[in-house]
């Protein structure tokens, strides 16, 4: 038995799980409920025209734009959202509860309303918009606007997922690290973040998934200009809603989006923050 095997063995040896086997029934139901519609979608794919649809220049540029903007949005969300999550997790009880609700609010807005709100905030008729404009940083209808819209809708997911796991990890290990001489930054980097790794991965995944699937706010705030702001969801929408376009290509594009995200998620799942030191 090699050492590698052995380590794996002791780590993988399944802790005996004691949940009632009956709950597998609702669990399978839930899974079916999520998967069957996807299967129905795939069943409608017109395989003959699939390649033409997904290789179309607009489709490719939308996909590239989607992946790029979602990745940037996720990175920004991580940079500002993880700190917010930590701050909430460590805030006094009542303040934390209030902040958690505040963070949840944007989730509730139908994304289109979110887009309107963003337009109201950064658009040409608001003080912020005018100020940004004069600084040459006008946001709406640019690729940056896509990212902003995605951040706005995706950030709450990251914050809530990370907050939960930071809170669960508690402060015992952090205080131990400080007592051993670690600075606050070192403690953050070497203890807090690695211990919250599961939550951070979950948060990043949720955030990325939500960002890449974002449609409503983007449509309003960034517009639907192919190559500039037309992300996959907008391309799908256009293909689906526009008259004279084949709906088959909407399904093809949806499939392309799904497969792309599947690949990205599987790659992310293999990654753990804090592993690399």
């Amino acid at each position, binding site marked *: 038995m090699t050492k590698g095997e052995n380590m794996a063995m002791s780590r993988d040896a399944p802790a005996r799980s004691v949940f009632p086997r009956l709950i597998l029934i609702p669990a399978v139901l839930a899974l079916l409920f999520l998967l069957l519609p996807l299967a129905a979608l795939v069943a409608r794919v017109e395989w003959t025209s699939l390649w033409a649809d997904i290789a179309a220049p*607009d489709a490719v*540029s939308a996909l590239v734009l989607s992946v790029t903007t979602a990745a940037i949005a996720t990175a920004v969300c991580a940079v500002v959202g993880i700190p917010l999550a930590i701050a909430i997790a460590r805030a006094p009880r009542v303040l934390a509860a209030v902040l958690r609700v505040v963070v949840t609010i944007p989730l509730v807005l139908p994304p289109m309303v979110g887009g*309107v709100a963003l*337009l109201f905030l950064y*658009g*040409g*008729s608001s003080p912020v*918009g005018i100020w940004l404009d004069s600084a040459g940083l*006008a946001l*709406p*209808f*640019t*690729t940056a606007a896509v990212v902003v819209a995605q951040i706005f809708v995706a950030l709450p997911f990251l914050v809530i997922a990370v907050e939960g796991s930071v809170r669960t990890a508690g402060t015992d290990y952090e205080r131990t690290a400080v007592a051993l001489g670690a600075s606050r930054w070192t403690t953050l980097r070497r203890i807090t973040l690695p211990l919250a790794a599961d939550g951070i991965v979950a948060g990043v995944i949720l955030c990325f998934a939500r960002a890449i699937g974002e449609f409503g706010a983007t*449509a*309003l705030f960034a*517009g*639907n*200009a*192919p*190559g*500039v702001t*037309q992300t996959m969801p907008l391309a799908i929408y*256009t293909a*689906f*809603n*526009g*008259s*004279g*376009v*084949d*709906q088959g290509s909407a399904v093809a594009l949806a499939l392309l989006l799904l497969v792309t995200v599947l690949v990205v998620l599987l790659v992310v799942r293999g990654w753990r923050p804090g592993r690399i030191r």
Partner: protein
Amino acid sequence: AQAGAAGGGLRIAAAASLQGAFDELVAEFEVAHPDILVAPVVYDGSSTLATQIAEGAPVDVAAFADEPTMARISDDAEEPRIFATNSLVVAVPEGRSEVASLDDLADPGLDVVLCAPEVPCGAAAQTALEAEGLRIDAASLEQNVSAVATKVAESIADAGLVYRTDVLATEGIVAVEDPRLDDIVNSYPIAATAGAASADDAEAFIDFVLSDPGQQTLAKWGFGTP
């Protein structure tokens, strides 16, 4: 149509229902005016486009599916011109024959979908039904005409009122012609925006749409001439 990047070319925003027709129009326009670069057309709901233009979206030419929406950006646009019309038809799933005329829609055993009265196709439908004194208990008041077409195509609804152009564009539905609907037309206005980067190019495009070749192309996609 090489102008993929922002800033280059004539920026056209058009209602989603114009997509097939305008893609073809733009191609023809570029042949006719090789000196004018056209950016990819932005298609979306007229209301969305209007909101964006009001908030300063970089658009030179706006073509909408109804006049009231165009009126919302009257401050930001030149005088609009009507370039096409669209009329309602009864749509039913392919291969079904319960519905032969407009009156059959009143059958309470049928699931009929209409557009919401707030949106142009719904307003038109309401006008038509009121004119005939028909009361329909719609199963759903859809946000846009594509949703109506999709529901009929998927046999979820038994019939719906859609534009003639949608029947051409959607697989799985056929039109039941009823002459009483031909009068109910929806007018499509087009206008250059006040902030158009190149007013001349915008005018050139609008003129092209209104020209004979332009009108022929629109007719091919099911639009009527104003």
